[in-house]
């Protein structure tokens, strides 16, 4: 509960943060809301030598209408995503899912960019933005680049971000009135999902992503493919775990996870189709 010694520097802007990370090298970490990093440090499972605090970079906290998508600044708190009228109108799935992250304390401190960059397969918003076909904007010493959510998650807690890159914006396509559902199955409201499903459906199109069904958030492309070819919801749901590589933990064996994924995908699609 007492972290190892570390240095702390505060950045006033994204540029300064990137310069500081570059200066301090591989053992440096960005600190935003701190709700994933600090618990790991307190358990001494993470021992960064320097924390670059980006929590005060004010121009990264926003939710804007950008035409065909909504742009969300990386430092936007989960609570602001949950309560955003703009998201409620155009991306209600994301606003709803943000309301299921952790508990109220976590939602007031944790940030959208932090949870995406942390790339935890058990977190709600990586999978939700993946289902929605989001694009992430990364800024590095040489400028910015866009990374599709489908290309972003590369392994357990591993993303496509370079060590000196910082996630600055999340761009989520407007849902255009699509039906949607977010299914979070857990034993306590505050917990990570044992299995979660974010899904939307509009005419023949759909997006289905799974929480905690592998080392990364999983896009259930087989389900969407089957739906596009006219499969029934219950038949498509049987393909829920085709892309998954579920792990075992105290809450669920891989077999139980696969079973849950099928049940929850079916329920999600039923709700999204209603």
């Amino acid at each position, binding site marked *: *509960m*007492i972290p*190892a*010694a570390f240095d702390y520097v505060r950045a006033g802007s994204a540029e300064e943060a990137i310069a500081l990370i570059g200066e301090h090298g591989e053992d440096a970490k960005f600190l935003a809301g701190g709700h994933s990093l600090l618990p790991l440090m307190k*358990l*001494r499972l993470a021992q960064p030598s320097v924390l670059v605090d980006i929590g005060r970079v004010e121009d990264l906290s926003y939710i804007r209408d950008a035409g065909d998508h909504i742009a969300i600044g990386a430092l936007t708190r989960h609570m602001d995503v949950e309560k955003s009228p703009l998201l409620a109108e155009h991306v209600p799935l994301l606003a709803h899912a943000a309301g299921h992250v952790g*508990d109220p304390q976590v939602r007031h401190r944790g940030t959208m960019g932090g949870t995406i960059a942390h790339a935890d397969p058990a977190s709600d918003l990586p999978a939700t933005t993946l289902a929605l076909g989001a694009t992430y904007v990364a800024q590095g010493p040489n400028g910015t680049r866009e990374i599709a959510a489908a290309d972003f998650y590369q392994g357990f807690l591993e993303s496509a971000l370079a060590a000196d890159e910082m996630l600055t914006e999340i761009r989520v396509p407007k849902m255009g009135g699509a039906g949607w559902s977010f299914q979070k*199955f857990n*034993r*306590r*409201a*505050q*917990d*990570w999902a*044992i299995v979660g499903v974010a899904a939307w459906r509009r005419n023949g199109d759909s997006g289905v992503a799974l929480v905690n069904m592998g080392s990364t958030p999983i896009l259930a492309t087989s389900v969407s493919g089957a739906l596009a070819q006219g499969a029934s919801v219950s038949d498509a749901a049987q393909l829920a775990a085709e892309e998954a590589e579920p792990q075992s933990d*105290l*809450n*669920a*064996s891989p077999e*139980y996870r696969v*079973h*849950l994924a099928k*049940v*929850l995908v079916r329920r999600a699609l039923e709700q999204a189709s209603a």
Partner: protein
Amino acid sequence: MTDLQERPAGVLGSRLLRREDPALLTGEAKYTNDLNVPGALHLAMVRSPYAHARITSVDLSAALAVPGVVAAYSGADLAGLWAGPMPCAWPVTEDMKNPPHYPVATGTACYVGDGVACVLATSATAARDAAELVDVQYEPMEAVVDLEDALSDRVVIHTDLGTNKSYQWDLKIEGEPGQVDAAFAAAAYTVKERYVQQRLIPVAMEPRAVCAVPQPFGGDMTLYSATQVPHILKVMTALTLGIPEHQMRVVAPSVGGGFGSKLNVYAEELLCVALARKHGAPVRWNETRSENHLATIQGRGQIQHIELAADADGKLTAVRVRLLADMGAYLQLVTPGIPLLGAFLYAGVYDLPLAYDFSCTSVFTTLTPTDAYRGAGRPEATYAIERAMDALADTMGIDPMELRRRNFIRKEQFPYTAMTGLVYDSGDHDAAATKAAELADYDGVRARQAAQNVPGAKKVIGIGQASYFEMCGLAPSRVLASLNYSAGGWEAATVRVLPTNKIQVVTGTAPHGQGHETAWSMIVAEKMGVAPEDVDVLHSDTAIAPLGLDTYGSRSLPVGGVAIAMACDKVIDKAKKIAAHQLEADEADLEFAGGTFSVKGTPDRALPLAAIAFEAFTAHNLPDGMEPNLEAHTTYDPPNFSWPFGTHICTVEVDTETGQVDVLQYVAVDDCGVQVNPLIVEGQVHGGVIQGLAQALFEEAVYDDDGNLKSGTLAEYLVPAASDVPSLTLGHTVTPSPTNQLGVKGIGEAGTIGAAPAVINAVVDALSHLGVRDMPMPASPQNVWAAINAATQGASK
């Protein structure tokens, strides 16, 4: 929803808000960790990462080089500091095996978390950093995690003992020889069940904290500790460290919960005192949450085999119980006695003839030691008999409520001498069950269930009951003697009227969340005719309250509270003599009401207690030979346990696709006798029920085969939050205890005792149409899903 009953007019029985709460809720309350102790050194423990390993070397050099580090020690370095091993106060049998247990292990580490070295530094952070640098070399040995494996002695943990078996304790009661076997042979129905009481981590909100402060001269030592038992801790620390008892003072500041886990004498308490003496400086230690999971005692940990024999009507004719109890790696303060606290309750609330056969075998494992956890033996016993009663009802094809009613000890049988020889002084189980059934709409739920639980239904409902007797108010000292317990069960109280008619109460109870200050002030207010706010309650400091046996086992009110009432009576008796003297009346002609003595029939000849208090103080005009001041002391040794009882009924809905259990309704009807403060009673029932429900649905200390704790943080060890539990419907009946003047019985553990079997009975009931007959605890979604699969696949074969 809370059932608000009519209230009596006096202070006693009113819903007075707890005087403790403003300080607790605003953060003003001072816990051990809040004490400002200049110059204190900080202790950090180095703990074994292995469940079972020989310690081959301990290299402290890197730790000693850390700036701020004052000293570092291996277990061997400290061997000279102990006058004896850590205490176990409950040698339940003559031949009980008890391995020597020292605050820091020397040759062998016996569980993950066992202390193997320690560091002292000028800051907590330096101590922690240095502890990480202590280089301990281990030779790992095989872990012993499974109780049946432990019993086989495949791997013997304490080689000097030659076995993992600590003791076997038997209780066989037969009206005539062979009655149990004969009853089983002649039974119309029998059931034979095996239940597992999973290990639980108590998770008090405040982890343990210790601060030992030596006096600069003379050898006096003050130990501040987050403990439930300052008095027991004082004696045990003195004995274990060879400190004269009168030089030991123990203070328990505000203590943030215990649930039994702080009813102990811990390595870190002894270490802080020993090192404070050695270094001549205060030494403090604060447990981290992770350490709390590893190094504070755990609860439960039993495998229960229970068999019931019944006649054609379902009347019980014999009960046979075989327990296998997990002691963990060592015996802590009362570890071996915990299963025996349940030994007397395996017949539950039922009228059993003299045909009872109980045996408990206890074994060591390479896991954290077990000890008292809310209910301590009694929830386990109640779970077994109440689950087995449902199994018997299922076997007979009758409603479990009906089976219970056929077997209840009837109201007119009280006082009832149980087959164990214990006297249940009062009870009315049928009334409690009837009230609970009404509140739960038992018949209505059964009707809904018949319509809803059809083949293929995705949501099914079940209703489960548990009726219990709680043996609490520990305890008559002579009964404890018969169980080889090393202390008595009395409680002490002093009531002192100050010159201005304010009252000080000194109690030997040691509250850690129960609200004793509020409750005890109400008892005194009622007795003495003063306002509760005019009563101060002093406790939990052995210099202020030197006599006491502390708080555990729902004992504080039925023993400590009654002692206070008796001390009040002594004060009133003395005050009456003064009043008679001053009013020039005969003592027999005086009555005391509303804080005033008056002559019967002549109410204007009266003297208020306030006036007498001042007279007693000035001593200007007291009866000849009377000592000044109004003060009385009582030590009360209860003649019997107290016997709270009740019925809990739980209604659940189970999602048969996912295995998720939702509690639709929870009804608790508890009878704790007279209620001093219904608000506090309800709080105790709420907390207790949720803790029992948590065992049924959420919590489990999970170890892997190597003895590593997999549920090592609160992310894996699922303590439910408010959003995860139902609202409770509370009701009560009031059957005053006939053994004490207040009619009180205790309510600290009742909820925990009733909840786990009620919930699991409901879950099994919901799935019985699918062929499910039992459910492991916790009834997690995965466990429920697996049970449904096993039952339905079994049926399809």
